[in-house]
Every structure is written in structure tokens, then in C-alpha cells.
């Protein structure tokens, strides 16, 4: 069954088995961090855990790769 996660409090629907990166991308959220120097937006690029562009903060833990991390009901993504 479809469930929800949130990004900065906003709900995003997830199909079971989807990664956090895939769910966000599908919901039209294509960037969730900015780069250290240029402040450039980043989201998915390689999609398979190689490029580290998609680093994301989930439930306050250290950054993980959104393209590898399977979403769970209630996961809270924060971007700031």
C-alpha cells in the first residue's frame, strides 16, 4: 500500500520498495541539497549510489544516499 514520508513537513507519497530519492523525484522534488561552494541544487544523478550527489538527511541522521535508501512510513526528510 502507498504510504507517506515528509520533506520539510510536506507529504510525499511512496510506493513500497521505492527509495527516498525515487519517491521525491516522482513527486517533482528534484533537488534537496545545495553544494558547499557554489550553493548549487542537487538531486539524483547516477541513481545507483556512485556519485553521492543525492546525499540527504533523513530522521536527523548523518547524510545518506537517497538513491539507495529505501523509504519507510513516516520518514522525515529535512533539507535545511
Amino acid at each position, binding site marked *: 500500500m502507498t504510504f507517506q514520508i515528509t520533506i520539510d513537513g510536506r507529504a510525499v507519497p511512496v510506493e513500497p*520498495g521505492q527509495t527516498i530519492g525515487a519517491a521525491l523525484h516522482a513527486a517533482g522534488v528534484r533537488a534537496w541539497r545545495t553544494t558547499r*561552494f557554489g550553493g548549487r*541544487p542537487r538531486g*539524483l*544523478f*547516477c541513481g545507483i549510489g556512485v*556519485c553521492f550527489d543525492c*546525499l540527504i538527511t533523513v530522521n536527523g541522521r548523518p547524510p545518506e544516499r537517497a538513491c539507495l535508501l529505501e523509504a519507510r512510513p513516516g520518514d522525515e526528510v529535512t533539507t535545511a
Partner: protein
Amino acid sequence: MSPTDDRVGVPNDRIPHDRVRDDYTCDLAVVGGGPAGVAGALTAALRGLSVVLVDSGARLGGQYFRHPPGAARGGTPGLDRFLRQARALGERAEVLLGHQVWTVTRDGDRLTVHCRTPDGRTVAIRCRDLLIATGAHDRPLPFPGWDLPGVLTAGGAQALLKGNGVVAGGRVVVAGTGPFLLPVATGLAGAGAEVLGVFEANGGLGLARHPVLAAGKAGEAAGYGLAMARHRVPYRTHQAVIAAHGERELEAVTVARLDADWNVLATRELACDTLAVGYGFVPQIELGVELGCETRQDADGMPVLAVDDRQRTTARGVWAAGEPVGVGGRYLAELEGRIAGLAVAGVPVPGVLARRRRRLRAFGEALHHAYPVKPGWQGWLRDDTLVCRCEEVPVARVRAALELGATDARSVKLLARPGMGWCQGRICGYAVACLAGESPRPPRRPIAQPISLGALAELDLDFDTP
């Protein structure tokens, strides 16, 4: 954190929960659960070897057989058969999913494969033989705007679709070079995206005489041609996306007509929300390189592990199959896995398998020759185009390093820092080598995956207590 974390589908019943680290001892450890790794592991297990297979993914499948959980949907040809193999393997071997191998150490003729689970546990697998079946990743080329969200690698778009059922975008452009662009485009179109075109930088033969279609060995290949026609996806040769535009996300691309060396002849803009772009693949060979395996240069210029006709590398007890010994597609990967499994078990390799392998390898090399990367792409770059996305190193800094006297990729890296970030040069390594005027060298990454200090400390402990 609860040790029953099944976030990436770690099969809990297989993992003892009462210890911080788990150890396995087996005859053969296999790294990689794609067509090569699964075939190798199953073949060896059927010959009576004890086998542990490790993959960082949530499910077996690798890149080609990536699939969502539960009942397999979508029509990846061969998936049913692969899943039967995977089930048979599960009954005969340990399958550790969600385990990332970050290094392999040697102690005499024993090898130890060090893995890390998502919840931070370390797992060591002691084995006599190791099969490296780690596949490849996309080989991107930099161009202005390639770091805009909405620009994905071709494989990334495919992984979104195959693994998550997510169509990468609404109005999609597919670009790059090589036969892989076809399944990406037809997959996206079949799933409802409007694919505005496939821009193949090489070509000249056009779609009708595309070598994969012309080989006609499988309905699968001919199917791409039909699907392209059915979805009215234009296939344009000698054209490429040379720039991406947008404020915060991709809004348009510049498509160029190219000469044979990929110099720009004429350009036009195309509005789109997504670009899937890829210029071939980079075999993942670092585990073998760190173990001292010799490498050779494949027909596409990439360093790959050198193997004999039984898939044996030059390092004792280390075997390799699939993309790490040269990109050639999933049939070849599976066949090489089987050959390796037989050879590790000490069974002679039937001549028919050896001949098939030679044929498929030759076909793979022919594809490399038909779809090379031509130097003209360097003319697409602007001074501020990022080469290294991690450390945000623009072309100008790389060129400045070359002017300062850097003579190869390694010294460019020391001066300008491309390839020093999280991805360890996996994404920019090929481009930096080209800019430095050399062929890409075997990567040196003693730690194949970023890991915690805790895991490193445990490895030290490990050396103290044999």
C-alpha cells in the same frame, strides 16, 4: 538501532543478531548479485562448494535485472529465469543483501571480504576464492549545465524505472553514445514519457543498421526498433546534447549536429524537463586492483581486470566475470559467471561455452569500436563548466593545473582537486584523464566505499586477533 532493520531488504533470518559483527567462512565469496555474480555463485554451489554472495542492493539483479520488490512487473526479458536462478541460489548459498564490500584483505591463501551493513555493522567473509562481479557504472562526459537537477545518467533513468517504477520525467531527451540508449529510450517511452529524441553522437548507420538490431540474434533487440517506431521516438545520429539550461532545474538543452570528431556544426534548443545521458560504462575494478590483479585496456579505453579463459585474474584465488573484465552486456556477463563458477569448482570448461564467450566478447568489442568517445566533446566545455561535481572543480582550474605543468591526471588531481570528493573520482575520472591527454588508469581506492571510522578500527582489531 534495531538489528532487524530490513530497510534495504536484508533477509533477517539469515543474519544472526546477537553479535556486533558476523563472520562467514566459505569456499567462494562472490561480490555482486547481477547476472555474472548469480550465475557464478549458483554454478559453484551446484558443484558442491560453500558459497556466500554479497550485494549492496536490496534485491539480487544487478543493473540489468533490477526490479521492484514483490511480484516482478514490467517486461525485462529474461527476468523470470533470473529470479528462478536467484531462488535456487538462496536455497544453496548464503545471500547477503544490503552489504557493501569496502575492502578485501589477504592472509596467505585466505582472503577476507569486509562488508558493511546499512545499520553500521561490519561483516567479514573468509574464503579461499573470490569472484569479482561488481559490474559497471555510467561513464558521463561533462558539458555546461550537466549538474542541473533533471540531468540524469542514462543508467540512472533506467534504474529509477526498473527498480522504482518511476518515469524520470515528462518530456525527456536521451543522448550520448552506444546501444544502451535504445532500451533507456524505449523503456521511458513505454512507461508514458514523451521521448523527444535519441541523440547518438556516433552513428552514420542509423537505426535500421544499428549493430544490435542488425545482429538480430534476439527478438529482444529487434523489439527496440519496433518500440522506437511505435512511440515515434526520433533517432538522430551525429547529434549530441552539448549544454543543459535552467535556473534551478533543467528547462532546455542545446542539441548540436556534430562532425565525425564531435566538433559542433550547428545547434538548436529543445525544451525538456529531463535528460538521460551516457557515454558508455566504467567497469568497477577497484577491489581487484587493490588485490594486485593485473589490468588491461579494453577496446573503449577503460582499464579492466585481465583474466585467462577460465576467468582467473593474475592474483591467486581471485576470479572476475561480467563488466569488470570488459563491458559486453548481460548475456556475456552471465556466461562468464558460469565459466568462473565451473573453473573455481575445478570442472573443465566445455568448449561450447568458451566459443560462445569468444563470440560475445568479439561482439562487445565491435560495439566499442562502433561507439567510441571522440575528442570534440572538449570543445563543448566552458571555463566554468564543472568537471568534478563533488569538489566543484571547473574546467578552468583543470586547464590551469595543466598549464602549471601537471602532466597527467594524477598531478591534475593534486593541483586542482578533481576526484578528491565523495565519489572518489568515479564520475569525473574519465573526463579528467581525457583532459590531461592520457587514457584512464586503473583506479586506486584502498577503501572502495566510504565507511565509518568504527569499521576501520574493527579491521585493525582483526589483524591483532587472527
